[in-house]
């Protein structure tokens, strides 16, 4: 018998039960080998198979097992453009968009952020942000998250004051590149702290330092240092979402709390986040478009389950397009999203998404 399944790019394919069993095992083993962690048990793999072979279009958890959602996009989905926000381009204001999210769509949190989505860019429009946040906070009931990313890449010339570290290294100026990158870490940290402090003045509930590590180990380090300082100074709730499953070693030797950040997988990243004072951690597991959805979901759950096992803070794994076992497609199909969602909650034991 053939079952309809998805590839990692969203294409519909037919797979036999034996092929799915093989892919689930291979996905688990890939995560276990890379992360040096345990693969899913045979029972868990069988439960995942049951979820994957279900013919219904929508899978769901039992009511008692429901979780809550935070977001790094939120209202942008309604009034943003498709490229940066996966948005549907409605001509509405951020306040209206958030009221729609809360009342019509049942979101657990509301959201605001600059469409350029980095702390450096937000500095130039901070007063506008404060004003819009005040209006959102006056009109909504759910907790409000402000999101932006450290985006160290935005500090390179011509957009910023620093020489491009990648270019320097490509020219063989390795030590010079490392030195520039080290200075950049504190520069980005100061921007995260300054923007967040301005937003606490109007009463924002939580800062989501998002897509952390996108520009490498320094990107992650600047976020951890910023979080540490913000917790001491403001006590603000902080969520940290990662950019990918693996911290790239652009520098390679940067440390936090005596640990080298480069090469860390989610179960080690979360311990750094806890140390810095993060309240909610968002691990990422990347999707391989050439593999099937059973392979990708099994792999994502293996990494996330280990992260959940060691975490003392809530986990909200990223499960948008191309991460968390979801296909890399602009409109991830309903069957793939809901199967991944159910599997992540039931098998990885996460606290939210």
């Amino acid at each position, binding site marked *: 018998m053939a079952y309809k399944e998805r590839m990692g790019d969203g294409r519909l394919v037919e797979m036999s039960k034996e092929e799915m069993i093989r892919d689930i095992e291979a996905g688990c083993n890939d995560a276990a080998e890379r992360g040096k962690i345990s693969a899913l048990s045979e029972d868990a793999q069988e439960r995942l198979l049951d979820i994957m072979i279900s013919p219904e279009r929508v899978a769901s958890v039992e009511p008692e097992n429901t979780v809550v959602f935070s977001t790094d996009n939120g209202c942008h989905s309604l009034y943003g453009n498709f490229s940066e926000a996966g948005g549907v381009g409605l001509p509405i204001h951020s306040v209206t968009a958030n009221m729609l999210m809360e009342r019509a769509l*049942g979101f657990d949190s509301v959201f605001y952020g600059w469409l350029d989505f980095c702390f450096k860019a937000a500095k130039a429009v901070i007063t506008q942000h404060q004003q819009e946040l005040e209006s959102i906070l006056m009109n909504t*009931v759910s907790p409000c998250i402000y999101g932006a990313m450290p985006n160290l890449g935005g500090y390179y010339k011509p957009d910023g004051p620093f020489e491009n570290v990648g270019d320097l290294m490509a020219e063989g100026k390795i030590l010079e590149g490392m030195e520039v990158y080290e200075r950049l870490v504190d520069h980005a940290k100061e921007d995260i702290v300054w923007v967040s402090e301005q937003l606490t003045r109007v009463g924002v509930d939580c800062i989501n330092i998002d897509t952390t590590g996108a520009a490498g180990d320094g990107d992650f380090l600047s976020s951890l240092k910023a979080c540490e300082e913000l917790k001491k100074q403001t006590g603000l*709730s902080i969520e940290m979402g990662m950019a990918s499953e693996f911290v790239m070693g652009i520098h390679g030797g940067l440390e936090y709390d005596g640990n080298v950040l480069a090469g860390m997988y989610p179960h080690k990243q979360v311990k750094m986040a806890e140390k810095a004072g993060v309240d909610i951690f968002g691990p990422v597991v990347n999707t391989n478009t050439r593999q099937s959805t059973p392979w990708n979901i099994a792999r994502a759950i293996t990494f996330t389950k280990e992260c959940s096992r060691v975490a003392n803070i809530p986990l909200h794994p990223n499960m948008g397009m191309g991460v968390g076992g979801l296909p890399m497609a602009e409109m*991830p199909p309903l069957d793939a999203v809901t199967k991944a969602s159910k599997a992540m909650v039931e098998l990885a034991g996460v*606290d939210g998404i």
Partner: protein
Amino acid sequence: MGMAVAHGMASGMNGMRTAGDLVMRMEMKGMKIKEAKEYVAGKLGVGVPELSDEYRMKEVREELDIGTVMAVPGAAKGLRAKARIADILGIEIPCVEKLR
């Protein structure tokens, strides 16, 4: 947009339709889902399973006047609802503190 709704259908508490916004507030304080649900249920005086029940939570939310998704005239909305949530959950909500 549809992707977030799909997650909501599959595994979400669905915000103010139930007690999702309240549980979310407690997770923002570092509580894991089990602890957060137990805390909120205790403060609302309901059982944990009731937190995900739209029918029951509509009654509870209207009774406590902490905001619902329905446009009920005269019912607490926005900051007024959040001020009541802060009192009931025994937490500080930053924008409510600004008001006070």
